[in-house]
């Protein structure tokens, strides 16, 4: 059943939903990346909640003019207008008052949502039109998706992708270094506005599929996921698009494969699963990689300290150090150093002396800064320099009685 869904074999409607959701996921992930890099991820939360009154008002207007009230384009235009007003309020509050952006986000989000709820109850009490569909905008409903709806979603997704493709250079620049960007003659406020317009477009298009409360997840989670895998901004954008599309596609397929699996929440949960996997297993930035790095470092320190202790004839009590020395064949079971052990201990001690000279020498200051107790001296000095140091240390001398 799930396989059928993944291969788009579950019939016309399910395939339509899956394709629409995938396009939406891709464009949400890509748009969200710029928001995330600009550290304004939660602005999307305010924008998405601010769409609700627009949906209600658009419905009322369409009914007042004798329409059906459920025309998707009309509702989406209404939601875009009210999201725009919300965004304007947000910017005005942060620019002209002492409120920080987070407080402004919360205020806009909750007030617009509250007002939207008031309008929804007005619609309910008027009992006009077929208002049953409006609740679908809260949590998304793809069950009754029509060809036209899917077309709108696909077109919206494609349009945002095209705009991003054209504007990716200035947007990346602004996301990383607004001051430098404005010094280069790019209008930061215009690019910011464009970014917000894109977020708004994605939100509005996504209302029908995942609903206004969860669309934020599609804008935030994929970029955060992608950030784990690369340090390059162009790749973060691509990866976020892929993560968003993948999550949306799998989510839509899962939701089509069984009853009572609402599309929006499933997509969000799949998206989170991808995030959790990345958090744990991503190379370099992942938790597992960090743990392994830590263990490797710990072993290096223990081995090094153990060798130094051997060279100076000190007794080693630390169990991990003992275990490591034995495993590397440097120490016998009875605690006496093997031949390699003696040799490497002598080398470690000599290296310490060499480093001590390096650190005392003003002319080698840059090299001395690299000393961390683990670095092999051969990796930072030439053979000639080491030979010069050895001459200053001198050869082993006999013990005077």
């Amino acid at each position: 059943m799930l396989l059928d869904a993944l291969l788009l074999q579950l019939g016309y409607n399910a395939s339509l939903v899956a394709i629409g959701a995938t396009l939406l996921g891709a464009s949400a992930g890509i748009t969200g990346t710029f928001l995330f890099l600009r550290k304004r991820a939660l602005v999307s939360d305010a924008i998405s909640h601010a769409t609700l009154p627009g949906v209600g008002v658009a419905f009322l207007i369409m009914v007042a003019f004798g329409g059906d009230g459920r025309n998707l384009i009309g509702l989406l235009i209404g939601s875009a207008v009210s999201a725009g007003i919300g965004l304007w309020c947000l910017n005005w509050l942060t620019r002209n008052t002492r409120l920080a952006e987070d407080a402004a986000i919360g205020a806009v989000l909750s007030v617009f949502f509250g007002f939207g709820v008031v309008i929804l109850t007005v619609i309910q009490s008027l009992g006009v039109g077929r208002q049953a569909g409006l609740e679908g905008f809260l949590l998304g409903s793809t069950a009754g998706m029509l060809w036209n709806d899917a077309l709108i979603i696909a077109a919206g997704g494609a349009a945002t992708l095209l705009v991003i493709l054209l504007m990716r250079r200035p947007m990346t620049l602004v996301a990383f270094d607004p001051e430098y960007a404005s010094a280069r003659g790019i209008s930061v406020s215009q690019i910011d506005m464009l970014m917000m317009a894109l977020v708004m477009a994605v939100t509005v298009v996504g209302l029908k599929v995942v609903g206004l409360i969860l669309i934020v997840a599609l804008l935030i989670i994929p970029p955060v996921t992608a950030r784990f895998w690369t340090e390059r901004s162009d790749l973060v954008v691509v990866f976020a698009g892929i993560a968003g599309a993948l999550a949306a596609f799998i989510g839509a397929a899962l939701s089509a494969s069984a009853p009572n699996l609402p599309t929006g929440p499933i997509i969000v949960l799949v998206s989170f699963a991808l995030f959790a996997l990345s958090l744990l297993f991503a190379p370099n930035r992942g938790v597992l990689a960090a743990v392994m790095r830590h263990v490797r470092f710990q072993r290096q320190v223990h081995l090094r300290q153990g060798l130094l202790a051997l060279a100076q004839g000190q007794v080693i009590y630390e169990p991990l150090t003992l275990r490591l020395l034995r495993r590397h064949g440097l120490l016998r079971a009875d605690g006496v150093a093997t031949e390699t052990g003696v040799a490497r201990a002598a080398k470690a001690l000599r290296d310490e002396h060499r480093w001590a000279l390096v650190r005392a020498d003003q002319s080698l200051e840059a090299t001395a800064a690299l000393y961390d107790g683990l670095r092999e001296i051969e990796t930072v000095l030439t053979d000639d320099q080491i030979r010069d140091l050895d001459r200053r240390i001198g050869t082993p001398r006999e013990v005077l009685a």
Partner: protein
Amino acid sequence: MMGEEFVPLSLTPLLIGICAAVACALPGNFLLLRRQALIGDAISHVVLPGIVVAFLFTGLIAAWPMMLGAAAAALVAVVLIELIRRLGRIEPGAAMGVVFTTMFAGGVLLLEQTDTSSVHLDVEHALYGNLESLIWLDAVGWQSLLDVDALRHLPPELPRMAFTLVGVLLFIGVFWRPLMISTFDESFARTLGVRTTMLGLALVVVSAIAAVAAFDAVGSIIVIAMFICPPAAARMMTNRLEGQVLWSVAFAIVSAIFGYVLAGYGPLWVGAADAVSAAGMIATVSGVLLAIAAVFGPCRHRAGSPAGV
């Protein structure tokens, strides 16, 4: 509107609304000043999964398991946000966004998966609450306030909300000085021996309790308006913390009363038959208050920015 039906139909929802608004606005002041305003946002979203899980465990719609479930969910969310922020080295806003959307999605999914059709637990109710339904059927008029028998049948939400308010008041009152100092200058507070991390966590927990108690009456999203709007409006009125807290309480009470009255009686004035959502109206009124304060408030500008700009 002061007629016979006021006490049974309007008095209790009105009181609950006022208590909820004040209980949320008080900790909201500190959250706002600490730039943690969106913690309220995160908490209120994760209340839903907490309540659903509590329902799944106990199988009944009872107040205490649900409060516990919601409070536990709020704590889980705070811990998860902190964990993801530290482990993944992600900025706090994004970490918050990841956690609360995921938990909310989980809550919705659980709700759809379980058969809750027989009980009164649905997504819309959780989102925008039902203040109007908290009526006091046993009251017949003002004299019922002295009638022990009728008082015993008060909606349980009212005493619960009142207790929460008292608890919040106690917390703020007892920890006023440490809270104030650590809000404005955390390192100075630490040199004085204040355990700032614990205090910050306690503030979040108190906010969570207020959010959970208010959730019942006004739903999970409108709670955010109560956390943020009155303190934000109060911030425009004064530069002193004491003044700000008092202003925020005043704004909270005004929004609760006006919101409820407008929702209940406003439609009747313009000739419509039915009331609109009281919770939504309270949020709207608090937003209007914030807008007025933002345009006219004496202290609306950032300190140091030129006047009249």
